[in-house]
């Protein structure tokens, strides 16, 4: 029978099918961090069980870490306690631990691919919903809860009903100044935040074939924001070139690589395979996007006005509550809205390409006086490249400061909080009420839009500055 890419990977990992219940799914690689793992380890301890395959789990500290002065002890005692728990649990159970200050440290979904933990056709989970990022490699990757973290530690399996399958095709080519982030925000604005709930998405079409791995990661990262469990893109030459030779990839010459390569080549949807749902959009119609509300589905092309409540799906009172929170009105222009903060970083847009894009606009310009900007690389590798490629000089000259790797203002668990009432153009993934700090107001956008806002102090079409 014809199969989709998703079927092939999923079916290849089912250890057992439970009658009237979920599938028992084997997990190849498991990523953990300090926030969602401590209670899972407590569970293991109280049951008196060991980690079944410690070599398949990797720990990094990211959610709750400071992004300045990482060499100093962490001040917040609760955060310090979580970091200590991650370290001692990892040590006790024999798990690789990349703590604060470790050269491999960084955001879990940035370091996973960088070190080849992420592999085509693998199953990957982590107690963080943006685990969907790794789907860019043709992996089945999704976020799980803490009970499931405990399951994976104990048995390397979780129990999940098989999701339905959706394919999203984007034809044509992207316009000038339009980035993978815009593609993702566009799709979510079309499908809404619940439009793909219950589905696993495959992205297909020329736009994705032409995309770099970094871009594909940005798109897959945001799959969760339309409700999907995850999203994936079939591996091709671009994928294989990226994976080859990385530390945790199958060794690049010899039998292991040949075997892996043979497997990678099988990872595509058969021509006559059927999806439960399918959408097609024309990529050439996508504009640089920006959000105006309190969920990622509330996004529009940057030149557009905020829609009327009547023209959007969902309840009017919920819509009004959202605009009220943002201090916006129906019919407002987005262009020209003054902003206070710019955040570039997170597992959505904290990779080297994102900083290159940011630099392409701020080069030769100056940071606007009314803007506080946080530039937070996704990992030490990204940080090192920023320096190597001379981007840091560009940033410094334009009045920006580079911080140290971590999740930072993406979820504002550390001190990087946007103050109440302030507007932030943010390259992260969520604009929920208070996501970036109590009372913060987030406008999600691409690194180009963020850069344009950072130098003009207001929402600006980046195409005018490129």
């Amino acid at each position, binding site marked *: 029978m014809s199969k989709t890419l998703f079927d092939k990977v999923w079916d290849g990992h089912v250890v057992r099918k*439970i009658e009237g219940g979920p599938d028992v799914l084997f997990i*190849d690689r498991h990523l953990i961090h300090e926030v*969602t793992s401590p209670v899972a380890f407590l569970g293991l301890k109280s049951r008196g069980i060991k980690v079944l395959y410690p070599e398949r789990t990797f720990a990094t500290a990211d959610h709750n870490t400071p992004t300045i002065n990482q060499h100093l002890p962490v001040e917040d005692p609760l955060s310090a306690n979580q970091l200590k728990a991650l370290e001692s649990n990892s040590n006790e159970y024999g798990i690789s631990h990349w703590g604060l200050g470790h050269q491999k440290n960084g955001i879990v979904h940035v370091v996973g691919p960088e070190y080849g933990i992420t592999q085509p056709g693998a199953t990957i989970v982590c107690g963080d919903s943006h685990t969907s990022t790794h789907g860019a490699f043709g992996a089945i990757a999704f*976020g799980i809860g803490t*009970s499931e973290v405990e399951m994976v530690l104990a*048995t390397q399996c979780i*129990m999940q009903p098989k999701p339905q399958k959706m394919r999203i095709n984007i034809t044509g080519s992207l316009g000038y100044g339009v980035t993978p982030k815009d593609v993702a925000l566009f799709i979510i604005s079309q499908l809404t935040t619940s439009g793909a709930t219950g589905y696993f998405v495959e992205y297909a079409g020329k736009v994705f074939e032409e995309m770099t791995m970094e871009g594909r990661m940005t798109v897959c990262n945001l799959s969760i924001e339309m409700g999907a469990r995850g999203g994936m893109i079939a591996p091709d030459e671009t994928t294989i070139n990226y994976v080859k030779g990385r530390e945790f990839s199958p060794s690049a010459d010899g039998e292991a690589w040949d075997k892996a390569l043979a497997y990678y080549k099988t990872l595509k949807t058969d021509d006559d395979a059927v999806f439960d749902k399918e959408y097609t959009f024309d990529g050439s119609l996508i504009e640089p996007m920006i959000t105006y509300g309190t969920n990622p589905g509330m996004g529009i092309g940057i030149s557009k006005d905020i829609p009327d409540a009547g023209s959007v799906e969902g309840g009017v009172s919920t819509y009004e509550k959202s605009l009220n929170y943002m201090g916006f009105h129906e019919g407002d222009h987005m262009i020209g809205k003054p902003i206070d903060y710019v955040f570039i970083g997170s597992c959505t847009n904290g990779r080297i390409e994102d900083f290159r894009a940011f630099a392409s606009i701020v080069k030769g310009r100056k940071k606007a006086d009314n803007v506080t900007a946080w530039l937070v690389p996704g990992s030490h590798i990204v940080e090192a490249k920023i320096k190597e490629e001379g981007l840091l000089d560009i940033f410094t000259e334009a009045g920006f400061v580079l911080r140290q790797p971590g999740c930072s203002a993406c979820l504002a668990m550390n001190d990087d909080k946007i103050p109440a009432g302030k507007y932030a153009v943010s390259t992260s993934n969520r604009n929920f009420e208070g996501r970036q700090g109590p009372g913060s107001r987030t406008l999600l956008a691409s690194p180009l839009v963020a850069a344009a806002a950072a130098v003009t102090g207001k929402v600006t079409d980046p195409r005018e500055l490129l």
Partner: protein
Amino acid sequence: MAYDKFTILKSTAVPLPIENVDTDQIIPARFLKATERVGFGDNLFRDWRYNTDGTPKTDFVLNNPTYKGKILLGGKNFGSGSSREHAAWAIYDYGFRAVVSSFFADIFRGNCLNIGVLPVQISPAFLENIFTEVHKNPETEIEIDLKAQTITLLATGEKESFDISSYKKDNMMNGFDDIDYLQNMKSEIQEFAAQLPI
């Protein structure tokens, strides 16, 4: 972690008629710093429930003594966003045993089932009727019968059935969790792992 068995729940309900309630609202990230599973109920809906100085916001439903009970009524697409299981813990810890909505986000639904909170998905029309009745009379009771997979609005007798896999239903009715099951198939898992291509 063990939880109380779920059979029949008859209770009044707390209405929260807002759509797309995300887990950042259910429990904001800054309250995720604990390394043990205690005290999350105190911060359930923290920023909707309290002012920044810690005083309660009187117009939020959890601060309105008229509404109480073990059932939380939510709008469409309840539990979207972050995968934090802490959201489900906060709901359980506060004292809710079931959440009723016309649509749930996937990860949230799974987390609830894993820790003993029953997500009950019903039609939008029925949900609307329950909201109306509960607003009219906060003493209105709702009965959720897990064995029969039905939910009944006792004031009107209106009833709907809801979906749950027989495996999860069994777990909830007995207070079991998945690890108990998986632990018993360890050798099968190890044999499986040995034949994987990567």
